[in-house]
């Protein structure tokens, strides 16, 4: 009988191991001879698994092997998968960088589109921008500026490392002084 018991424990182990879903006591009973009690087998298997890297646990209506909790932490590999800022967030950040301190209304004016709270929140959460007081006009709108984290993210020593706006935006912000009679180039 002991030898048989060993066989049944092996069978239960293999069944629980290979099953995609937790193995119910009923499924195990169906696999065992009538005179063998599934519960006994499971208890014995559980006892034998003690101190191993995996343990037999009851999940819902069935049984499943799981990694021992004290090892799970050591097994966890952290994969760094950097995210990309959405275009709207990137543009908003750029406007804040070059125009800071700047109000939301000003950002909207420059982009020619309304700015969602979600975009501001995303930039705040990424520690790229911070509030920088209020503009002293009616409504006292919040002013936004970049953080040291912004400098770190973009590998800048200071904001003066950013190219001048005039060097960036050439044709659209052309000076108005040039006479229309003079050919552009």
């Amino acid at each position, binding site marked *: 009988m002991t030898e048989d018991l060993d066989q049944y424990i092996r069978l239960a182990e293999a069944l629980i*191991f290979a099953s995609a879903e937790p193995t119910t006591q009923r499924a195990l009973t169906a696999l065992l001879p009538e005179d063998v009690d599934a519960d006994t087998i499971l208890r014995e298997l559980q006892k034998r698994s003690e101190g191993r890297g995996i343990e037999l646990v009851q999940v819902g209506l069935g049984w499943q092997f799981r*990694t021992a909790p004290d090892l799970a932490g050591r097994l966890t590999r952290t994969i760094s*998968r*950097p995210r990309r800022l959405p275009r709207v967030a990137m*543009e908003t950040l750029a406007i804040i960088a070059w125009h800071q301190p700047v109000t939301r209304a000003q950002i909207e004016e*420059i982009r020619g589109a309304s700015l969602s709270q979600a975009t501001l929140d995303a930039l705040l959460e990424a520690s790229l921008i911070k509030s920088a007081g209020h503009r002293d006009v009616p409504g006292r709108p919040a002013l936004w500026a970049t953080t040291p984290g912004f400098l770190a993210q973009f590998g800048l020593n200071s904001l003066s490392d950013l190219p001048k706006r005039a060097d960036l*935006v050439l044709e*659209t912000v052309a000076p108005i002084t040039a006479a229309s*009679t003079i050919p552009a180039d």
Partner: protein
Amino acid sequence: MTTESPDSLILSLEGFEGPLDLLLDLARAQKVDLARISILALVEQYLAVIEGAARIRLELAADWLVMAAWLTWLKSRLLLPAEDPEAAEAGQSAELLAARLAELERMRAAAAWLSARPLLGIDVFPRGAPEEHTATDRSRLVADLPALLRAYVEAVRRGTARVTYQPRQLSFWTVQDAIKRLTATLGSMPGWTTLERFFPALSGQEHRAALASTLLASLELARNGQIRLRQDSPFSPILVASPRDP
């Protein structure tokens, strides 16, 4: 290979993958090492099977008949005296046939060896409910300075494009422009006309600039005798007329 009934013969032929398959089966029936089988006996058995099959099924597949034709040739040469060069050639061909049969036999054994292995997913099973111990850290950002610059330029460009920016019409004239305008419109101006009427209504600095260049232009034209100029008193309007006008 027995030939008790034509039907069983057809069935047994169809059970073979091809002529080589049948030949291997016939060779095995000789119950000797494949390297020492009697090719001649094999050929005769094959031809007997094909002949029996052909009697009842003329549309027998071409490759069976091609093999039969080749084996008939082989048999005729194998029957020649050993010293005949054609017999030697046939001997080589027979060896090659034996070698092919041996290789097919080996690959059968190989397939059987593979089939006897405990097969994953059929005999043995991997973990049914794998655990995921990989955490994903998405806190870092992919964003570099060039991307930031591009974003700024795009934002500004799109922002200004939306307002449909149009540069202010500028009215600073050069003297050359004033000369052109004066000569072009002089004919249509009857009599003495004030200088201001030779450029559109402007204000402030633009008016003064236009007046200055038009005055210079009128002096130039008057010097050449193309127009006449007159000012009745200091700071009164300067009048222009065509030389033909009285």
